[in-house]
């Protein structure tokens, strides 16, 4: 079950911070011409695969719920 967050961040902003912290997602400041898949989508896929969720590469409700569960602050993948 999800745990309420003490934050005013939007879900997408929250997800970005989660992926930066735990999946080594870089801040994307460059234009994305020619990129077929965004890094956020790739990192979401990594996270969904790790937790055995349906791998969609998108921020669905199930993935967000998983992100909001209490957890260890150590990354799931190598930095």
């Amino acid at each position, binding site marked *: 079950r999800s745990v309420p967050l*003490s934050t005013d961040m939007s879900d997408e902003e929250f997800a970005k911070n989660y992926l930066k*912290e735990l999946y080594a997602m870089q801040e994307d400041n460059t234009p994305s011409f020619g990129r077929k898949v965004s890094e956020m989508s790739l990192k979401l896929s990594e996270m969904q695969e790790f937790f*055995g969720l349906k791998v969609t590469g998108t921020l669905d409700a199930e993935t967000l719920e998983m992100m909001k*569960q*209490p957890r*260890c602050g150590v990354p799931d993948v190598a930095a």
Partner: protein
Amino acid sequence: YRADSSSNKWPTNKLTYRIENYTPDMSVAEVDDSIQRALQVWARVTPLKFTRIYSGIADIMISFAVGDHGDGSPFDGPNGFLAHAFGPADGLGGDTHFDDDETFTFKSSNGYNLFLVAAHEFGHALGLDHSTDPGALMNARYTYRDVDSFVLPRDDVRKIQALYGSNPEIPDKPEPTPPPTPNACDPRLVLDAVTGLRGETYFFKNKFFWRSHPQMPQTEQFLIKSFWPELPGDIDAALEDPSADLVYIFKGQKVWALNGYDVVNRKSLSSFRLPATVKKINAAVYDESTGKMLFFVGKSYYSFDTNNKKMDKGYPKQVEERFPGMTGKVTAAFQNNGFTYLFSGPRVFEFNESTLMRVLGNKHFLQC
């Protein structure tokens, strides 16, 4: 922290630890005891020895901190990240920090149990990564489990012993067998119980359950205690009474009534008017077409009228009378889309009313 575990271990089996400060949530003695027991979780299955020091630099420096505490990985306030630890190395290596914006507890399931959080973090401090096994202590998600009967799961034992080897000392009493996480692909898998819950189906086995949503192809596996901390493992039976939005969980003479994630009532098996000779049931199902609860005991079953709150007359009857072809003991049961599914060991018998339609395996329901 580096995830390259194969080279990420301490070069010695003799490690020191120091508790630098304390959380106000617990007494000093409770923190000391929780930390010591959390380290022993790993010491019991390896040659590792932990010695506490009270000054100077220890291999594992333990502290409680909030927000930005100077290691480049700030904590985030209540919930979210609970703690973190650095893998084996000099300096920060091995150090373990707890987010003191959390409420830590000694024995209770309210708040976050310090022993469980610490045991997980010390796994990192010794060189372990997160595990994808939902039953593993090293799974990234915090899950409350019974602290008094805690036994390090098999996945964690295998991984820590791959780094440090097993404990060469013969213990005074044999260690309990590490509990494995049930595998949906095991053809010999015999489920404990199956029930619906608000449109989803829950399949119970030992301390775990799989959760299946009709619109989702995947089934997820969880520890029972992660949803209902009060419930035991190894349950006998479960059924949903959708008209009352209640799920009943049976173990021996005890019955728990659940409304979603809340335990709303505790009853005894006798409250269902079963004879006193019935000490436990093997399976149960709510028949939506009749409003009856069917309780399976061996090769017989009882029928309980939920409207009149009494046992129907003429029971027990042989299961095969109502479900021809069902000759074995019913070990689990549930209804879905008008079909009744009776589990007997690893086989599942699908009935439409009293007609046997198919004989299936667990894989029909569980993703493998």
